[in-house]
């Protein structure tokens, strides 16, 4: 399982320091891209498909991560036994928990939760940051700030 120590090693890094495939345009949203490089996810559309083929592939899209989680649910209902998971934030209407699907709306974001902290790629700051869940909940204004957990694929 990923640890806080491992994630702290990414703090302050830009996507150019993480992705070797050149998919590093600062105007793109790299939240799922960061998560996937850290956790080794390479399903769906990847940076190797869209960039160069030099380094490991990483999934680029949030809506392709969400259905791969073994279980998903509202953040407030996260089982106490879940110490590490993915954390998603978007509007509630963009998520179908029963079908485990999320539509590709622009305002959606994902990070990695481990033992009370969330590591994610801040596209505004262009680097990996660490936040408490209460801070992460302000990533988007209401109503696009509903949080969901997804157990690690």
């Amino acid at each position, binding site marked *: 399982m990923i640890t806080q120590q491992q994630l702290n090693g990414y703090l302050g890094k830009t996507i150019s320091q993480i992705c070797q495939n050149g998919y590093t*345009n600062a105007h793109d949203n790299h939240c799922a891209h960061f998560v996937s490089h850290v956790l080794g996810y390479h399903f769906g*559309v990847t940076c190797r*498909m869209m960039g160069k083929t030099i380094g490991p592939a990483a999934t*680029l899209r949030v809506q*392709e991560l969400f259905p791969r989680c073994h279980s998903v649910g509202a953040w407030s209902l996260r089982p106490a036994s879940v110490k590490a998971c993915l954390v998603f934030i978007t509007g509630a209407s963009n998520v179908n928990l029963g079908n485990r699907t999320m*539509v*590709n709306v622009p*305002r959606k974001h994902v990070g990695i939760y481990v033992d009370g902290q969330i590591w994610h790629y801040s*596209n505004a700051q262009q680097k990996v940051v660490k936040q408490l869940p209460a801070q992460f909940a302000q990533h988007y204004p209401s109503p696009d700030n509903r949080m969901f957990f997804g157990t690690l694929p």
Partner: protein
Amino acid sequence: MTRLAVLAAAALAFTACGSRQTQSGTSSETISAPGRPAITSSPAVHVAHQPPTAKDVIDAAIASADVPLSVSSTCANAGTEAADRTIGRYLAGFMAQMQSPEKKNWIETTIEPGKSDKGEPGSLCTLTLRHEDGDDRWGWGVRFFVRTSDGMVLQQSFTCVGAG
């Protein structure tokens, strides 16, 4: 929202309502490529200049609004609504998010020399709709190939680009 985006959105809305504008129309055709589903399309789309200009790329994307999202695995579930089935609906979904005059929105086009799956020379064209408002930052669009020999937009070459 930029003036360009307004125009493009209006044009896409127009095509989505059942009409279409192309540089030159020909008869319907069925196109297929290994590993991709056959696409019945009409009419063929041709660009006005070689290599294509930014205007040609936008025009070609608008004229290709009816291309199904099933054209590429990169377009699967790429629409902003689960019911989206075409490139036109896909692009319109993101254009609809570009309406605030207080936010930064723009259209980005790139044209690079390349070769088709069959080795034909041409231009690899990308149109990306972009938005930035703090952490609300994204770029979604399409990439397609324009054949040099006749300026034809190869419909089976469409892919959906974007991350996040």
